[in-house]
């Protein structure tokens, strides 16, 4: 009954090439999306600061809620098919994927970090104020590092969650890991084996990410282990 034929995947060097290349594309795009999303996320966080104009902070809030309460696939299709038509400007599928991932992650990032910021005790801000630091310095030197440290675990799991949905970018023609898998499955008709292999690859990449996040954690937040 169980007639596994994984060799149907390794047999063709082209299949292996495609899968490896797909891995690379997936990793590259989600890493880039993660980093850009972080930057945009920080912008969103500061736009929600107490001293920023109501309109701006309202806009940031609305943006975050919109992204968090709609599926990634809809955002992706809008960015890939809607926006170019609207702006009369075409760009590559990879660019669309990257943009969608950036926009998506930035909202989750901003939400998590904002929660982290509001959990910083007021004593920290008062102490910094009494030392004559300006509002901006207090935010950048005191509040943000501590907030990032506190929410780091949720940030990384949020990123992993995003990574696990990136397979959807194959739907707009980006040749990522999922795309490579479907390419192979369409040719050797071993869908089950192919998707098992794909799953293993995704899980392996997640492990890689987690190892990197752990190392980064120790490097970036050396004070954490002590408390």
């Amino acid at each position, binding site marked *: 009954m169980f007639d596994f034929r994984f060799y149907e995947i390794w047999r063709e060097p082209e299949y292996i090439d495609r899968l490896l290349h797909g891995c690379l594309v997936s990793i590259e795009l989600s890493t880039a999306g993660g980093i850009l999303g972080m930057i945009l996320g920080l912008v969103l966080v500061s736009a929600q600061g107490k001293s920023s104009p109501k309109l701006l902070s309202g806009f940031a809030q609305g943006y975050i809620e919109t992204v968090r309460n709609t599926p990634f696939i809809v955002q992706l299709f809008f960015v890939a098919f809607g926006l170019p038509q609207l702006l009369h400007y075409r760009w590559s599928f990879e660019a669309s994927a990257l943009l969608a991932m950036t926009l998506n992650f930035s909202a989750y990032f901003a939400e998590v970090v904002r929660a982290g910021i509001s959990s910083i005790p007021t004593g920290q801000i008062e102490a910094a104020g009494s030392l004559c630091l300006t509002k901006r310095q207090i935010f950048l030197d005191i509040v943000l590092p501590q907030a990032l440290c506190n929410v780091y675990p949720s940030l990384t799991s949020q990123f992993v969650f995003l990574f696990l949905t990136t397979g959807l970018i194959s739907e707009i023609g980006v040749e990522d890991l999922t795309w490579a898998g479907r390419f192979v499955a369409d040719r050797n008709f071993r869908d089950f084996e192919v998707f098992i292999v794909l799953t293993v690859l995704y899980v392996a990449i997640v492990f890689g990410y987690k190892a990197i996040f752990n190392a980064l954690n120790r490097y970036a937040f050396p*004070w954490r282990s002590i408390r």
Partner: protein
Amino acid sequence: MFWFCRTAVKGPYRVQKGNDMSETVAAGPAVSIRSMSKWYGDFQVLKNINLTVKFGERVVICGPSGSGKSTLIRCLNRLEVHQDGDIVVNGVELTMDMKKVEAVRREVGMVFQSFNLFPHLTVLQNCVLAQRRALKRSKQEATEVAMRFLTQVRIPEQRDKFPGQLSGGQQQRVAIARALCLEPKIMLFDEPTSALDPEMVNEVLDTMVGMAKTGMTMLCVTHEMGFARQVADRVIFMDAGQIVEQNDPESFFTNPQHERTKAFLGQIL
């Protein structure tokens, strides 16, 4: 309850007014508060406070919980905003103007009950940060100054540890060194020893006594009466948002004038 507190302190302390600013800074009082009041919503925490502190003077503030001691001292570097009257610190009047607030904060150090060290910075970085940001000192100079004050509070060897690795007493001494690093003219203490285990209280008080000997202007909220006797020039008793009584420590402790003061001293001594 409030009726006998009406006797607002008149005392000999008058705000000196000079037309020449620079002279006022040099010769004027460190702190002068005139008919200052503060409300939290409808609740009046501070009622018509008048207080003048000269440079070099050491003032201990005591009083029952909720009497507004913390609020008063936090008004002096504008961690709290007063609504009525005026506060002049080191010749600068505290207003909405952030420039003035910063000018005051540069000259006023503060030590908190709960230390409020920055947990993500080492002891040394805690001391260096504000020097670099507020005084724009070079890293080397800031480090030198920091080490000088860490030595003064007797924990230079802990410089590379994080606050989480230190005992409460050590943390509070770092907090004192951190405040001193900006070389303030005035130091504010808000119950600096009440979050400490009894065996650590003395190491912090010793540091403060040492600071008093250097001639620092100090305003200290504390219930450590031994410390008050030893270093204070004046003890102020607050109740229900008012300064009820003030006197030199000897007279204050041996011959309190008001019923509330007597009751309070009876409780804590």
